[in-house]
Each structure stands twice: as C-alpha cells, then as structure tokens.
C-alpha cells in the first residue's frame, strides 16, 4: 500500500532548466522510445531529471510500505480471532516484502539501499502521509486494509504501465498480492458494518477519522500542483492526482453507502451531468503540515524505524562477508 509520491510544488519550474544540459539527440531518442511504449532499463541512457524523479518516487513508495506496516502491525497482537491474526500477519509481511522489491528497483537507478534507509530515518525522505495517523481501534486497521489499499491499487495499477522496467515489474508483483489485502479489508469492514450496533459505531468512527487522510492520499489537487506535465510525458506518472481521486470515489463511495455507512463530507455527491464527484476541498495546509513532520505519529514512526536499524546492526555486522566492492544489481 502506498500514497502518491510527494513532490515539492515549486520544484516543477526547475524542470526546463534541468533539461537544458541534456544532449537533444539522446533526449529525443529517449522520448521516442517511451512514446512507442518501450520500457527503459537500468543501463539505458536517461535524462538526469528522469532518474532523479524516479528514485524519489520509488524510494518514497518503498518507505511507505515499511512505515505503513507500523499502524497495521499495532493490531496484530489484538486482532479478533486466530484467522484474522494470521491474515494480518501475512498482510504486514507482504507490505515489508513490497518495500524490498521497491528498494531494489530504486537501487538499479544508482542509489544504494543504505542511502535510502539513511534518508528515511533522518526524515529527509518522505513517505505516504496517511501513515502519520494512528490506528486507534481494530476498526481503524480494517478501514486501512480496505480503503488505503484500494487507493494504493488504483495508483499502482496505473504506474505498472509506466516506462521504467524494474518499477513496472515490481508493481505487477505487488498488485497481485494487494488484491488479497483489499478483499481481506473489505471482509473485515463488512463484518463490523453488519454486526452489532457497537461494531457499526466503531467502523463508522474509524471511517470518519480516516476520510480526510484518504482524500489526501492521492496528493495535492492538480489545480495547485503543476509538476505533472513532464512526468506524465515520460510515463513516470500515469494519471493525475485528481483523476485517481475521482476513480477512487467512483469505485468505493457506492460500496461504503451500500453498507449504510456515511462519509463525513456533506458536499460529497456525483454530478450526474459531468460524471465527476464533487467534494469539499481537502485541507492541503494540514497535508503539508503533516508531511513536514507535524502529524500525530511522525516522530514515533521514525524513532521506531531507527530503533529497529540500531538493534539489528550487530546481526548485520556479524554476518558480513569479506566482500568489499558494491555492484549495482541488474534489473
């Protein structure tokens, strides 16, 4: 699971000047290859900006998988019943495995795994904003598994058709595994929503808490985020933030309503003329505040991650072989 990669809004304007020192012939060949639907492979020529944006995006995606395992992992010890405990453990293990696949894909672009982990634990790299919120009850874990994973699948299915070979291959594998997460999450939410009044109330409250982060999940509105043009041309990004948000609303709001649950946005409705959903504009200042470290769980998430790295360090050192040179993996 994963949120859309976050890019500083003012970075976009720099793109054209970055392209200025690329060889125009190589750039044209590169763009023609993408236009034809060919994949770019690690050792192919690519513009510096393409490499930079992909590293950032794949790395953020990897970090999101690792950090996303924390709010869900909170409920492993207290999942109701043995079957759900097993399923949740499998899901969390999947997410951590996804991080390995993604770190490997980013690594083929020349950033070492150590450097990515260092940037995560010092707070330099971002990860999906939603994971800076706490999972108060079991119902929160269920809403995450259903709706956050649903959002992730929309994003990942789109990006799997992108231009960078290793990222696409990792995403294909990830999407296959995510389909179980979605079903599992839906099953849990349905159980609560069709259960006792207390269970219904619990899942409604969780949905109310998670709705704003879910609306933030696909990233800032296209109206305020103008960086997407070249990334879409290069098939780094395959759909705009607003398009993915629309797709999510279209697929999941009816399913939420089917269960007699309500969405905490009185403006939410489908405009039958345009076919588009209308909603209250998410609070993008809150989004920025949280992504820059001000959310309820940012400090905890990173401290837990540093703790894991530090306490595992002696094991990694003890197992080190005599090898001294690093080789970038092939694919």
């Amino acid at each position, binding site marked *: 699971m994963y949120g859309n990669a976050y890019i500083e809004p003012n970075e976009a304007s720099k793109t054209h000047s970055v392209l200025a020192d690329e060889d125009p012939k190589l750039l044209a060949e590169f763009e023609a290859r993408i236009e034809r639907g060919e994949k770019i*492979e690690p050792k192919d020529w690519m513009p510096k900006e393409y490499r930079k944006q992909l590293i950032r995006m794949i790395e953020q995606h990897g970090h999101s998988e690792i950090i996303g395992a924390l709010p869900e992992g909170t409920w492993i010890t207290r999942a109701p019943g043995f079957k759900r405990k097993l399923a949740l453990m499998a899901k969390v293990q999947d997410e951590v495995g996804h991080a390995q*696949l993604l770190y490997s894909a980013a690594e083929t672009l020349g950033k*070492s795994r150590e450097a990515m982990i260092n940037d995560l634990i010092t707070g330099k790299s971002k990860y999906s904003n939603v994971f800076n919120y706490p999972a108060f009850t079991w119902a929160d874990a269920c809403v995450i598994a259903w709706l956050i994973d649903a959002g992730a699948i929309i994003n990942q299915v789109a990006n799997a058709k992108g231009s960078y070979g290793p990222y696409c291959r990792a995403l294909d594998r990830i999407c296959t595994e995510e389909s179980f997460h979605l079903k599992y999450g839906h099953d849990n939410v349905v159980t609560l929503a069709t259960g006792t009044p207390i269970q219904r109330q619990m899942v409604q409250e969780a949905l109310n808490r998670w709705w704003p982060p879910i609306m933030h999940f696909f990233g800032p509105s296209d109206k305020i985020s103008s960086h997407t043009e070249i990334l879409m041309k290069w098939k780094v990004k395959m759909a705009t933030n607003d398009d993915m948000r629309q797709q999510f609303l279209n697929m999941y709001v009816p399913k939420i309503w089917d269960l007699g649950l309500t969405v905490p946005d009185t403006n939410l409705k489908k405009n039958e003329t345009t076919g588009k959903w209308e909603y209250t504009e998410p609070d993008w200042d809150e989004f920025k505040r949280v992504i820059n470290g001000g959310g309820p769980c940012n400090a905890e998430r990173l401290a837990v991650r540093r703790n894991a790295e530090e306490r595992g360090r002696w094991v990694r050192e003890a197992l080190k*072989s005599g090898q001294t040179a690093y080789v970038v*993996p092939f694919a």
Partner: protein
Amino acid sequence: MIESLDPRINRASISVDNNIEPLGTLDQWETYEVFHQKKRGDQHMHVGIVHAANPEMALAFAKEQFGRRGLTANIWVVNTRNVFASTYEDADIFETTTDKIYREAGGYKVMDKINQYKKSQKA
C-alpha cells in the same frame, strides 16, 4: 520514551530522539539475482534480487520474497558480481540473425516446385 498505541512499541522502551550512526556501505550486504522455476520442466526465470550476506541467506530470502504465492519448484541465486551481461547499447550485435533465413524452417519453400513437377509428369 514513546507512548504508543502499540503495546509492542511500549515494551521496547524507545526514546524519541534516538539518533543513530548512519548505515555504512554494504551494511545491507551485497545483492543476489534470483531465478525462479514454477514447476519441474520449466525454465528458470529471472524475477529480481535480494540482499544477503551469503548464498544460503539469499536462498532463504528469495523463498520469502519470490515463493510467497503460487507455485515454486526450485530457486537459484547468483551473486550479482558473477553475472556478465551484454548491454542494450550493443543490441545491434543480434540484428544479423534475422537475415539468416537459411537457418529457419520458413526459409525452405518446396511446395511450388513439387506441384510444378507433378503437373509436368501428368502432361
């Protein structure tokens, strides 16, 4: 100490300003390329990489990472250092092969001659 909703994190007594030394080069060991065989008789296919300290560990991680779903009959791991590969830049070295039609079954068309021969025999 962090006060978390997660009892496991509370038990671990983690300080919020636990700054650590950055990970050094090869802290995450080297990489192994993983080849996966779905069922006996199939080819092994390259599926990705794992980071591991030794081949045994690479095999264990490859099983977790790439044998999680569906069928697996067998896995190979090969140290990335030991893979010697061609480059896409030199892809033109493969181009001549398509010209060598005399190596293909389709390069031999005999039916026209046979039919012509048969016709001439009847006449």
